[in-house]
């Protein structure tokens, strides 16, 4: 057997699953004592270009409470044409189509390399993809123009059969009827009044004359494929392009000292309602583009008086955000309606100030939607991010899935757990916290393996309904006797992210310091459990290699915007957290602990410590925090650049040096979603603060003279440095008082 790191990466490659522990403690009690819970990070739609979808449907366990899918871990009796479910031990007959089965003629799902396999559901109609644009018109003309162009561009990226719809809003909400000849037609709603789907249906004239028969007709295989508001791109491409072209800035006058009235809450509600009454349980994306906060009606987050600023963390702490609760409730209701119908809600918020993401976060969060935040629609950040939403894989299909549901079959629980994500993309990663239900006094037989099956059903962007099944198994181990092997199976990266997600979740509902305290406590406990030390002797503390990086992750996590709200607006926090909890492990790690590369004449580019000591005058640093790609020119480099050496042929090498991080940054920019903010700064530049706030403040104004003048840049902060943090940690870990 390979080393655990190899095993882990292999598993991740193949199944998109990483566990915090790769050997499972065999009882509930033991599991809880592990400090870091037994949990998995699952990337259900991890790209597997090598995995051809299978054109038939999965074979299910016949037990009604199980319904597990036939997998390579099942025991098969080829002669009797029987298979035993490895979850409930039910013996099942193979279906008639499997009569030819034998040891040499095995279906794909029994081959070990197909522990992850994708089936294409043949039944049911091919559902169209639905994209409903919800567009704010309360924005500067420049912004609106840019947005219009982006939207028009996006039309060309949609498959011709996809249905599109357009809702615009400002003070009013307009649902545009598409494909009208001559006159463009739209239904207008007041932005102050919420409507139920039924009311909406009536008002939009969507009540079918055959509504009475509709009840019976529900089974009818042919649901309406389009209506006046949602039509195939190929049919109304031109029309919609014109319509978008004619979009005007919201014409209602905004008096001095007021915000424009923006009926965002109702607009989203109408969007949800429209899809709810026309395409329930069909994959659909509601893409909301907003240029500011909702200022009226349900879901408003701030009044229209400019003199009253939008709520800050301070206001929230003081319970001074009068719209927040009501507004949040509104969006939560919308999110649950949308997710019940399998509809995704995206939010693209581009404004300099906050737009209410804090209140609206549940919409993308609960529906697997995207949340994108930028300063303006007229930035490449938005434009390229938006374009990337429609990125396609090699088959020319979108890298997005709709109306997805995930099921887990797990041994020991016997239960079925289902989640609805609605929207998934290849990097969407879920953290699943498992519970070992086995009682302490009923140990699992030695050498036994625990099996997990993840069944993800989704609507492929081609319209096909697909089921991806991942079956995985891990060894059980008795925590008392085999603690070493369990410890060795620790995946500290996964564990860090899993813990971070828990912390973020707590941060949503608890006060910041409490969360930090909890996190610290967990860390200390972990150190106590798995560290090697003498009581009350901090210097004796040692951590095994599998745990060595973990405290450092925690250190950066504590300083990260996911847990720290200082200097971040509530919207930003929501945004960061949203991104953090949906991305895969690698990306999440970058978010927690940004990556720093150094470029200098001294050698090839190299990763350097995220530490103030890395900031040197003759270096160019490239920092990737996931949200930002920052290029920092050291003091000397900056001077050189200012002097224009790069323009001189004799200093071509300097030009190359300058270019190198830029090229690398571009590469990152092009692969990242959402697109990071690109920052080019230098020593003393105002934006250098982004770098300075991330690095470990090993040198500060307090201790800088203890270090060599030239060894780095002092950070003006009172934050503790990693060293201090570690010292404290050791002290606490070994303390018998703890």
């Amino acid at each position, binding site marked *: 057997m390979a080393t655990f790191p190899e095993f882990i990466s292999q598993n991740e490659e193949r199944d998109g699953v990483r566990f915090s522990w790769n050997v499972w403690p065999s009882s509930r009690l033991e599991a809880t004592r592990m400090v870091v819970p037994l949990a998995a990070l699952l990337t259900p739609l991890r790209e597997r270009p090598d995995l051809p979808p299978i054109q038939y449907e999965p074979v299910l366990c016949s037990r009604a409470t199980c319904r597990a899918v036939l997998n390579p871990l099942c025991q098969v009796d080829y002669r009797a044409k029987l298979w035993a479910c490895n979850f409930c031990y039910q013996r099942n007959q193979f279906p008639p189509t499997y009569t030819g089965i034998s040891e040499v003629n095995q279906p794909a799902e029994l081959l070990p390399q197909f522990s992850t396999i994708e089936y294409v559901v043949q039944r049911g109609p091919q559902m169209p993809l639905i994209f409903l644009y919800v567009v704010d018109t309360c924005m500067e003309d420049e912004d609106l123009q840019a947005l219009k162009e982006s939207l028009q561009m996006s039309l060309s990226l949609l498959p011709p059969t996809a249905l599109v719809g357009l809702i615009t809003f400002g003070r009013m909400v307009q649902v545009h009827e598409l494909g009208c000849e001559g006159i463009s037609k739209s239904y207008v709603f007041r932005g102050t009044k919420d409507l139920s789907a039924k009311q909406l249906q009536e008002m939009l004239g969507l009540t079918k004359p055959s509504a009475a028969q509709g009840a019976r007709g529900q089974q009818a295989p042919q649901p309406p494929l389009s209506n006046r508001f949602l039509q195939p791109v190929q049919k109304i491409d031109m029309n919609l392009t014109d319509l978008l072209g004619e979009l005007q800035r919201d*014409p209602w006058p905004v008096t001095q000292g007021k915000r424009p009235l923006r009926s965002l809450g109702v607009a989203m509600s109408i969007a949800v309602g429209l899809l709810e009454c026309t395409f329930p349980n069909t994959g659909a994306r509601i893409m909301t583009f907003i240029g500011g906060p909702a200022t009226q009606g349900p879901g408003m987050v701030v009044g229209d008086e400019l003199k009253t600023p939008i709520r800050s963390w301070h206001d929230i702490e003081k319970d001074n955000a009068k719209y927040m609760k009501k507004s949040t409730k509104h969006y939560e209701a919308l999110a649950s309606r949308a997710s019940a119908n399998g509809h995704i809600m995206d939010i693209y918020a581009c404004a300099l100030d906050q737009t209410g993401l804090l209140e609206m976060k549940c919409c993308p969060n609960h529906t697997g939607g995207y949340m994108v935040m930028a300063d303006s629609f007229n930035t490449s950040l938005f434009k390229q991010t938006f374009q990337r939403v429609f990125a396609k894989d090699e088959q020319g299909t979108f890298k997005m899935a709709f109306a997805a549901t995930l099921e887990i079959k797990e041994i020991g629980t016997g239960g079925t757990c289902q989640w609805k994500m609605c929207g998934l993309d290849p990097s969407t990663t879920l953290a699943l916290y498992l519970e070992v239900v086995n009682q302490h006094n009923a140990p699992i037989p030695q050498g036994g393996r625990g099996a997990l099956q993840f069944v993800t059903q989704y609507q492929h962007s081609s319209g096909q309904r697909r089921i991806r099944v991942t079956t995985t198994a891990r060894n059980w181990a008795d925590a008392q006797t085999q603690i070493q092997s369990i410890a060795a199976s620790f995946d500290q990266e996964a564990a860090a992210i899993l813990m971070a997600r828990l912390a973020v979740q707590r941060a949503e509902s608890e006060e910041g310091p409490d969360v930090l305290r909890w996190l610290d406590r967990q860390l200390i406990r972990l150190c106590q459990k798995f560290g090697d030390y003498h009581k009350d002797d901090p210097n004796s503390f040692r951590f095994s290699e599998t745990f060595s990086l973990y405290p450092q992750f925690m250190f950066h996590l504590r300083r990260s915007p996911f847990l720290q709200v200082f200097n971040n607006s509530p919207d930003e926090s929501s945004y960061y957290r949203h991104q953090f909890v949906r991305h895969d492990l690698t990306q999440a790690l970058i978010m927690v602990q940004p990556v720093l590369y150094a470029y200098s004449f001294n050698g090839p580019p190299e990763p350097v410590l995220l530490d103030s000591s890395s900031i040197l005058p003759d270096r160019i640093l490239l920092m990737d925090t996931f949200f930002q790609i920052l290029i920092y020119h050291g003091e000397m480099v900056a001077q050189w650049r200012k002097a224009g050496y790069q323009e001189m042929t004799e200093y071509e090498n300097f030009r190359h040096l300058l270019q190198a991080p830029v090229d690398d940054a571009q590469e990152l920019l092009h692969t990242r979603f959402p697109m990071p903010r690109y920052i080019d700064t230098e020593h003393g530049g105002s934006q250098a603060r982004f770098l300075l706030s991330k690095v470990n403040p090993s040198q500060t104004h307090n201790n800088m003279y203890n270090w060599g003048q030239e060894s780095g840049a002092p950070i003006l902060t009172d934050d503790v440095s990693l060293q201090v943090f570690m010292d404290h940690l050791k002290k606490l870990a070994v303390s018998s008082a703890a």
Partner: protein
Amino acid sequence: MQNGPPPGSQAPPRPAVSQPYNQGAVNLSGPPQPYPQQYGAPPPMQQVTNQMTGMQISTGPPTAAGPGYAPPHSSQPPTSAAYSIAPHPAYTQGPPPASMAPSQPPPPRDPAPPQPYYGGPPPPQHPASSASAAPLPPPPSSHQSFPPTSYPGPQAPLPAGPQAPLPPGPQAQPPYAQGPPPPGSQPHYAPAPPHAHGSYPAARGPPPPSQPGPYPPAGPPPTSAPPGHYQGTMPPQPPAGQPATYHSGPPPPRAQMPPSSMAQTNHLPPGPQGPPGPLGPPGPLQQPPPQPGMQGGYPPQQNGAFGQVRGPQPGYPGPYPGQQNYGPQAPAPAAQAQKRLDPDAIPSPIQVIEDDRVKTTEPFTTGVRGQAPPLVTSNFHVKDQGNASPRFVRCTAYNMPCTADMAKQSQVPLAAVIKPLATLPPDETPPYLVDHGEAGPIRCNRCKAYMCPYMQFIEGGRRFQCGFCSCVSDVPPHYFQHLDHTGKRVDCYDRPELSLGSYEFLATVDYCKNNKLPQPPAFIFLIDVSYNAVKSGMVNIVCQELKTLLDHLPRENPEMDSVVRVGFVTYNKVLHFYNVKASLAQPQMLVVSDVADMFVPLLDGFLVNVKESRMVIDSLLDQIPEMFADTRETETVFGPVIQAGLEALKAADCAGKLFVFHTSLPIAEAPGKLKNREDKKLIGTDKEKSLFQPQVGFYSTLAKDCVAQGCCVDLFLFPNQYVDVATLGVVPVSTGGSVYKYTYFQAQSDRERFLNDLRRNVEKPMGFDAVLRVRTSTGIRATDFFGSFFMSNTTDVELAGLDCDKTVTVEFRHDDKLSEETGALMQCAVLYTSCSGQRRLRVHNMAVNCCSQLADLYRNCETDTIINFFSKYAFRSVLTSPTKTVREGLVNQCAAILACYRKNCASPSSAGQLILPECMKLLPVYLNCVLKSDVLLPAADVSLDDRAYLRQLLSGMDVSESHVFFYPRLLPLMKLEGDSLPLAVRDSEERLSKGGAYLLETGLHLFLWVGANAQQELLLNIFGTPSFGQIDPNLTSLPVLDNPFSKRLREIVDAFRAQRSRYMKLIVVKQEDKAELIFRHFLVEDKNASGGASYVDFLCHMHKEIRQLLS
């Protein structure tokens, strides 16, 4: 200046006033003497029409009264008696008919005298004038001109008549009566007549033939006596000299109407041919017909026609169901012609109108206080000399009683009908615009009256005393001017506000809403696009028309483009707004389905400048009919439609007008939803009033909001069934808007009418967001207001819109004594926003005299205005009282007015004598018209909507509209010569000649009635077809024929239409056609199917009422 005019005016006015009358008197008979003799001093003004003597009225009394008249009437009284019976059927009142009889008698007598001069025929009517035998001669000349036909007719015919008729002569009556001469007529009456005859006429019964005889003898001599009274009244008419024409008119009709003709014939014969008398009757019978025809100069044809006519005549009763009513009467009278009250003898509106028209030759100058203006039917030029032109303000009385007691005693309403923005004829100058600078118009410090000629400057011009409240205010330095030796300001004649009755001030920002100068107004067109609207073609027509109409939006400077912005909405159950911003390639439609909570979905691009958005608007108007061509939506909303318009104006922060084109009862779920509540069973009950009240309170509230915003609503209805005009009209009526109704609208036939209405409505000058306030001098107070407006307090009349056709009627009451010296002053100030967005104040000043003698009041009344007031009052009362009560109230008040006159002003005379003040002699006939109107006495086929519609319509009518509305103009078309109109005839079937064609105009309807025997040439001239049968009854416009007659007729029709604020669709009515029923409804002097009394009957009734009050 200030006070100068009033006092000065007083003196002159009287003489002036009296003079015209005197003249009239002169004409009548000798000089004024006749009057004095009859009435004493007052007479000049008061012309007493003593139609009938009471004696006649009360069968019994007649004899008694008879004494007075006895000799002359003696024979007649019985007649009347006989009559009474006949009438009974109609009225159930014996007396009235009696009265009618008397009227007739006189004529005969009169005729007699004149006849000698002329030949008899014309005189019949002249009875009145007969008294003025002397003057008569002149009239004859006129007679000749007009009635030539009649003359020749009589003359020639006489012989001829006799000839042919001779044989029938004796049987002349038979023809009418059909079989048995006298009795023949009776048959119609059935038992009644016989009885009558039996009793009174018995004597006559036999005489029928002799009738002629009796008249001539008795008639003439006695006539003279009664005539005297008549003359009193009539004189004025004769002066006109037209009486002749006038008379000439009547004859023809008579010809047609057996009864009347009989009367005439009777007269005729007596005069001309005493002996032939007997023959006479027949003659006239035949002749009359000829006369009408003759006029045209088609004697031959007519003769021929007449020959035939005779045939038909007998059948008359048969063919015309309606006529039966008349028929019977006719025959009755025919039989007992003399017994009946002669319609010709009772005050004739035509006569009065014509007299006034002829009399009015001089421009009317307003500088003389208390002077009544010419009638609305006369053409006159007005010179503003300090009081508002009658085109702006008309009063019921130009001499108000000094005390409340007097006013109460007389019961004459004191009111003014104000048409603040009336359009003036081109030769009169519109009110000047005065700018008093930044401080705004100069006003009295206390009562806030605006600077006007009634302000008296004192202290060398440094201060002025208010003519209304007597408060002294300082003259602002910039307005100071020295006074001349008479105390007038030197610049008096340079300043409109010091020398004119009407002018405008430029308002300052203080007079604007929110202290902000107003935006130019906007017009919003809201078009119903439900199934019915599309199917009837309305949507298409509106859209097509708007394309051109938008170039004619109101503007003050014809050179400039209108600044009025426009917006468009269509709707059925939901509303569709349109963005027609100039920068768009195509209009955008914005659907609002949330009608429960209306809002305007867009701002920019909804209200646009026509010129800038022309392309987009045209495209929209082209597409609307297409878009909804296949609609299946039948339900509509209404409340939200108005709300939408209102919200749009609010959003644009401007005043404006909504044009709502609506088809059906709004039953769709929305605010202001209505249900069908038309219930014919309620008519006539105490609950009837609820049908006139709005069904829900929603619209009243909405109207209030509209007024606050200056949102005027004009409603064009195209109903196929009940739409509840009473409720839908609430907003238009409260916002100064109008309701137009096109029941069973069909594109083809109603297009012209609708489009002309729409065009006129869009183009007409109007003001927005107006507030009208009437200030009065101490002693009287404006207490009540009628019209299309809203009042949130007791003094300010708020009009979201005020167009040139709208009037506000104001009633005044005393709150103190008035002085004869200073008279009574009123100032009507209207603050409004012009169509160019300028805020202005229009001021109309009016001063009237005050009197301590009731006679002065009765001498300076204006009946047309009184009727206008009464009708508005009554039509409003139906909201709160049963119609029966309202009708009775009207009758009582009129009776009281007339009784008061009789008691206090008329010279003593027999109690049985009906004496009417000259100025009010038409009061009964007009009042009868009001009582018979569809609102107060609906015919079975009149829908509730129609009634509600008329009710609302009337509230904004000016005097000339209400006049023709109640007493339609009926023009004979036999002869159209020159530029003058043919003399109108009275609204009675009796006046229609079978051989002729008539044009009847009510201000709302225009009928062309064609007699079944119309001559070929006439038909050719009008229709281009020689045959009656080939006339298309569905014609809505006259064929354009190249002959002078056709041309002139079309000119007349066009002129009529131009004169009215609403386009009148031409309806061709062929005699004996179904449509004639409708037409006959407008022959208001006749009895109608729903129980309305004939003029004659009503007059008798009034007389009875008056007598009751007097006794």
